[in-house]
């Protein structure tokens, strides 16, 4: 047998996320950031092909997030971490460093991924708050 491959649920999640234009992160059951899509890359100013997989602390430090006062949000209060550690969905607003270096307010929804053989990881989708307001104004 070849070396272990990713669980199918993560493979399918990555395929989905790579096909949509909504910024999204995918982490495995250990909290390693195993993929983020092009839209997320545009938001944070780095491409997944450049960063590769990032450990739990690495991606937290690389991308923030921060509260409205610019203070780092503890890792265990990030929606993706809550989805991972507590196995429940989580939604919140926060700030990250955008590609331009500015602080960008975003909304984040994270949800756990549970397969037939148990917990597999989690995914989070992001929405720049400004984009949402523009969309509302345009509607």
């Amino acid at each position: 047998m070849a070396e272990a491959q990713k669980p199918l649920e993560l493979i399918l999640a990555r395929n989905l996320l790579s096909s949509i234009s909504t910024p999204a992160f995918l982490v495995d059951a250990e909290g390693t950031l195993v993929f983020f899509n092009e839209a997320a890359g545009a938001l944070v100013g780095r491409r997944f092909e450049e960063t590769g997989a990032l450990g739990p602390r690495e991606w937290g430090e690389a991308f923030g997030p921060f509260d409205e006062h610019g203070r780092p949000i503890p890792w265990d209060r990030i929606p993706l971490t809550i989805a991972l550690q507590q196995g429940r969905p989580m939604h919140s607003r926060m700030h990250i460093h955008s590609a331009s270096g500015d602080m960008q307010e975003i909304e984040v929804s994270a949800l756990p991924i549970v397969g037939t053989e148990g917990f597999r990881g989690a995914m989070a989708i992001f929405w720049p708050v400004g984009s949402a307001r523009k969309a509302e104004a345009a509607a």
Partner: protein
Amino acid sequence: MKATVWGARGSVPAPGPETNRYGGNTSCVHVSLDDGSDLVLDAGTGIRCLGLAMRPETERIHILLTHLHMDHIQGLMFFAPLFRPETDVVIYGPASPEASLLDRIARYISAPLSPVEVRELPCQVSFLDAPDIEWQIGSATVHANSVAHRGPTLGYRITEGDSSLAYIPDHEPALGAPLEALEDEWISGYALAHGASLLIHDCQYTDDEYPAHVGWGHSRVSDTLAFATRVSVRRLALFHHDPMHEDDMLDEFVTEAAARWMALGGAPAALAIARERQSLEFAAPSAVTPP
């Protein structure tokens, strides 16, 4: 280990003079191990004729279901050994959080779809979720893993000595991302099929047909060949023929597939298209260079 095809058709049986040469029965492959153990891969309509051909004195039969779509279980109710009290039949299949394997199969083997209920089957039958670790059946090691298809679906790898058979009859590994863009560990079915002596793999669609069927859980020929190349199988059998593909069409299909296989670096003799009652050849150890 010997593998014989009893049904290579996908989706729905397609009997008739137009399909006589490749056969119209749905998925079923019999694997005979060196120690005499009998494994049956899927229970499409091909399993009916297999059951009639098996020795009545066969004591134990292991049926490995990849999933519970009709073309993979429809023949189960007509499998003669299920009606022999002295036969022990063990049926493996994918786990589901919704119901046990027995309960899910009982939806088919029960009224109004069936005159017989599972509990009325005369044989000794048991239903087991396929373990998520390797397990032993007779002289073979069996490994099951989830693969990309609609609904809970498994592929199997059966290893006996130097020979290994990977069976992934319903599979769409390139859904959402081209295989060449993915690392090995992100390819559905990679671990199951890597380096196998023989891979029996979904090849339901031509490249022209595929765009109308994206997401249905099946592969076009270019993806099948790319997958087989990527996992370095030593022999490949194209499987799960579309019911619309008549014999003459499949002749052309495999001719074109062979040309593309060779263009990818595959050995000509390493590619086959499955047909009913055909004994599939395994690559001898190190006899064929992986493409």
